[in-house]
């Protein structure tokens, strides 16, 4: 792939185990590209990428498949298989391994769908669901094999505020209950700050704000891209204290 100008220039970061990194930036800065590079869907022209201990930038496509089963991705437009039912979509990875929809797989599908609160939709087709429901099914499909890394590409893109909150609550739930490492790309600052200022309370079974002055670590950091480079990397409090004029304008 050749561009006249690099889409990402000198981008380098480390995602720690159990950490959630939110990628922010204007459209066209290469945020989705980072996710696709992380999955090996695109190869970089320069540099190396290591995922779960394996260096993927030089790996062949055929060798990537085993690694990809340990990573889950939620695509921007859900990318559900529209000629399969919700159940078949969510069970896709499991069916690949065993070849059929057994009772055990059915039970795991229901469990994943219950996590995203869509237990009753398993015999519907994606075309019969709303945008928000499709996004939740996509999340269920990504988490069913309990991947070690989750990649979210604008999970709330194109959704109304209420549905967006539901999706973010699921992301926070996944982060806090299963401690999955994840990269989340979003345009919406409010989602990023919600994630940094809330946690999932298992006893109440919902997302609640972190109390002021609490020392709770939400394991969420921000990465802002601009003009093909990273201009900020750090936690939410650090971001709010940043004096860079572009970032101040971006935040306002």
């Amino acid at each position: 792939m050749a561009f006249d100008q690099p889409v990402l220039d000198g981008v380098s970061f480390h995602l720690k185990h159990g950490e959630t990194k939110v990628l922010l930036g204007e459209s066209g800065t290469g945020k989705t590209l980072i996710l696709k590079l992380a999955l090996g869907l695109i190869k970089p022209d320069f540099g190396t990428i290591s995922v779960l201990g394996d260096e993927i930038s030089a790996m062949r496509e055929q060798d990537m498949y085993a690694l990809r089963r340990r990573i889950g991705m939620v695509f921007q437009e859900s990318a559900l298989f529209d000629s399969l039912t919700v159940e078949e979509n969510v069970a896709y990875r499991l069916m690949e391994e065993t070849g059929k929809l057994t009772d055990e797989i059915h039970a795991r599908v229901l469990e994943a769908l219950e996590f995203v609160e869509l237990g009753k939709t398993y015999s519907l087709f994606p075309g019969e669901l709303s945008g928000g429901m499709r996004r939740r099914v996509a999340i269920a499909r990504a988490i069913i094999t309990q991947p070690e890394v989750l990649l979210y590409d604008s999970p709330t893109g194109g959704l109304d505020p209420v549905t967006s909150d539901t999706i973010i609550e699921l992301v926070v739930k996944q982060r806090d209950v299963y401690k999955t490492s994840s990269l989340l790309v979003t345009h919406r600052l409010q989602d990023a700050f919600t994630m940094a200022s809330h946690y999932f309370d298992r006893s109440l079974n919902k997302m609640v704000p972190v109390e002021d002055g609490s020392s709770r670590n939400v394991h969420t950091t921000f990465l802002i891209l601009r003009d093909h480079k990273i201009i900020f990397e750090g936690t939410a409090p650090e971001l709010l204290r940043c004096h860079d004029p572009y970032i101040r304008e971006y935040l306002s």
Partner: protein
Amino acid sequence: MPITYLTDVAKDNVEAVQDYSILAGRSLSNLFARPRYIADTLLQADSIGVGSLPIVILTGFFTGAVLALQTSATLQQFGSLSLTGQLVSLSMVRELGPVLTGLMVAGRNSSGMASELGSMKVTEQIDAMRAMGVDPTKKLVTPRVIATAVMLFFLSIISDLVGLTGGFVISFLRLGLNANEYWSTAYQSLRFEDVFMGLCKPVVFGLIIATIGCYYGMSAKGGTQGVGRATTQAVVAASVLILVSDYFITQLLMGIFGK
């Protein structure tokens, strides 16, 4: 308006041929590696083979009929009307059966594959498949390639038989030929080389149809317009390649068998 350099066009075309060759090669080499999606292959065989049966029967029948009709005038001039059976038989089996069946199936299925895979490509479903550790070539392309090659083989046989029947109907009803004479000359004029040629071509055409359809589908870009473009290009490319390869296969086999 940007100037398109000839070198850029040439490079794009060479790259396209390269990508196509890689896809075609991989679709066949996938047969030798697990997982093999047998269920998908059978589903495709049903959709491509059984689904194309009506149009193949119609095409074959009327081709055979019109062959008999058109050639009757010339044959009659030389008093050779009794050769109609032989003529229809050799033309259908060696050439028209495989080629016209191939063109019909190309129109129906190459476009279907290009549009189905193209739609999946532009809605990121192919990427989603790759992201979940499933090789789209193994899951989508190889089943279609194998199913088309195998089914076209049988469809051509059916087309040949139906064509001979169409020729017979015209010969018997319009030209007043003896039924026994027609069928016995039709059968006896066929040699091994003719049947071999007639059955070799459909396999090659089947591979062309499916690999072209899948290639254009998997490389579609640009939303719905891109899918539409891919579908049209697939049919055109498959049809042209069938006709071109038909010539070379005929030439090759005639060289080998001396007939």
